[in-house]
């Protein structure tokens, strides 16, 4: 049975015909192509690379770009794509987030014409896969402390340093790498490093218990030489990578709704068919109903939040702290829903016959990646008080 959606308040009316058409297309794709294989992929720790050309044929990569033969969707339609993909799996959504918001977006926004002409069409068609290197082993929430440097030497940049927790790292054809220009005190710049460049390697993180259908790697640069033309000319400073993350986090706020929809839908179905005590479904138990009521209420609030965010983004009025609020809230909602769904399913909540445990494990990553829950809390704290708490002034 195809996924019927979760829409308690009739929010469908607030989407345009083409927004609904986009959502329904991706919904059908997830039902037909992702759900039948995803439990096995996650269990085996395999990224379903065979889906890349299919996703490209649907134009899922760079879908908000209106040039290079790409569809030029608005941000609400983009959000709905993320929602449906993550209803399938957070790992698949992560792949599309990275390709679109963290690779195509910076190249399209900050790249030279030549860089755009070289990479945007190939990335859009899925012929090339991209990754985004900002986080380092010792610098997560504080990317400004990064140690990776790029020094000019003749007609090359020479990169040294390491990035970690990089989605798509080992399968990427091109990495957007953020490094300090010239030395530790230099400005942060974006560099394009292609696979096969001597001095560039990408070992995979082993033993991952979450996002198992997605590739996560380190990027290691040892005297890695790239042409001078491989720097993104249009941006300097941390606002470069942070602007990309705002794009991606916006999508994550929608994606988390998808995860919550999946676990809620599964729990509701299960509760209505599972019978205990006098042959009555457990959905008749007050404690189960309390959980379902919590889930549907929080999902509905999350939907409204992301929809408002999308309309604001399309109107050019979105602020990073708005995105922090939605990412923080909606991923928390997804995490709570996964947990409650798993409780409702009892032992069935831990097996791969149901999607719940996979979502529950996935959302743990999403909870702390792209800005941890706590850091987004502090971003909101700063937004309302005007006082940054996470980078206090020196005594």
């Amino acid at each position: 049975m195809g996924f019927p959606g979760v829409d308690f308040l009739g929010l469908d009316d607030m989407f345009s015909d083409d927004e609904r058409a986009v959502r329904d297309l991706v919904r059908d794709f997830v039902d037909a192509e992702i759900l039948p294989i995803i439990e096995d992929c996650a269990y085996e720790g395999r990224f379903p690379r065979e889906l890349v050309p299919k996703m490209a044929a649907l134009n899922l990569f760079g879908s908000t770009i209106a040039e290079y033969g790409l569809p030029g969707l608005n941000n609400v339609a983009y959000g709905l794509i993320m929602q449906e993909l993550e209803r399938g799996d957070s790992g698949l959504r992560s792949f599309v987030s990275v390709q679109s918001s963290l690779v195509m977006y910076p190249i399209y926004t900050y790249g030279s014409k030549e860089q755009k002409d070289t990479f945007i069409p190939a990335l859009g068609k899925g012929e090339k896969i991209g990754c985004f290197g900002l986080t380092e082993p010792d610098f997560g929430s504080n990317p400004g402390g990064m140690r990776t440097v790029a020094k000019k030497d003749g007609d090359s940049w020479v990169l040294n340093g390491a990035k970690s927790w990089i989605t798509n790292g080992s399968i990427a054809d091109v990495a957007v790498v953020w490094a300090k220009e010239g030395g530790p005190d230099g400005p942060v710049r974006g560099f394009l490093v292609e696979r096969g460049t001597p001095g560039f390697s990408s070992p995979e993180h082993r033993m991952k218990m979450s996002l198992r259908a997605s590739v996560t790697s380190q990027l290691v640069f040892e005297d890695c030489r790239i042409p001078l033309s491989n720097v993104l000319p249009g941006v300097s400073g941390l606002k470069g990578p942070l602007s990309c993350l705002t794009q991606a986090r916006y999508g994550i706020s929608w994606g988390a709704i998808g995860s919550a929809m999946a676990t809620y839908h599964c729990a509701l179905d299960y509760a209505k068919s599972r019978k205990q005590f006098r042959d009555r479904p457990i959905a008749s138990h007050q404690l189960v109903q309390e959980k379902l009521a919590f889930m549907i209420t929080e999902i509905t609030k999350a939907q409204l939040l992301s929809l408002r965010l999308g309309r604001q983004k399309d109107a050019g009025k979105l602020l990073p702290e708005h995105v922090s609020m939605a990412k923080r809230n909606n991923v928390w909602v997804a995490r709570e829903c996964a947990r409650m769904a798993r409780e409702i399913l009892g032992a069935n909540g831990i097996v791969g016959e149901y999607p719940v445990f996979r979502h529950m494990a996935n959302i743990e990553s999403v909870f702390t990646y792209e800005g941890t829950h706590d850091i987004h809390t502090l971003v909101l704290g700063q937004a309302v008080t005007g006082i940054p708490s996470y980078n206090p002034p020196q005594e």
Partner: protein
Amino acid sequence: MNHVVCIAYVPDTETKIKIGSDGKSIDEADVKWIVSPYDEFALEEAIKAKEAKGGTVTVVTYGPARADVGLRECLARGADEAIRIASEGIADVDSLGVAQMLAGAIKTLKYDVVWLGNKGVGTDAQVMVPMVAEFLDLPHVNLVTKIEWKAGAVTAWREIEGAKEVVECPLPAVIGAQKGLNEPRYASLKGIMAAKKKQIAVKKPAEVGVDAAAMSGDKSPVRWTKLELPPARQAVKLVPADDPAKAAEELLRLLRDEAKVL
């Protein structure tokens, strides 16, 4: 080559059908509507032919405004134009009436091939292909699983009992698509955005030369008088298997005395 594809916008095959309060219609609340899967085969083959040989693809349906969503989906997959003959304000029309509506609209177009699914999954009447062909005075081939184009003609493969039949047919012709003809594509996001800019021509039956009043409601030759759901399935009876020999004996007794299948 120009193609016309007739589509039916029908309840999703997974919809749990409920009967309306009048006892002879479907309760349409909560029904998810889809382009009939057999029509999707027809559309895919028409788009493939257009891609290979040029021409246009026009989709046509008879139905209410909700069918525009189905037409838009066809436009997003690659159809160029869409026509809906509006059913608003017209009482029930049977297959013969719908065939006349479709044929009326098709007559206003330039075409080489008219496509339909061999049946609509809603009512499974399986009569639309020959009826439309008759109204257009064209040859038809139905239940087609493979096509090859020739100059001014088509070679079509049909699955028949225990064999394959290969027929040749001059164009223009009406072709009924059967499962196996192709694997319908997904629309693309680009297609959805492009479809936004395309117009759906909504026409009244009179505009395609059909007198709806003469064929609808009480005038319709075939009318639904009653709908019944199949009887609800009996609860499953589980035979405890603690003692296999006893269980087998009990199972046999149930099959013989209760189910009466032995």
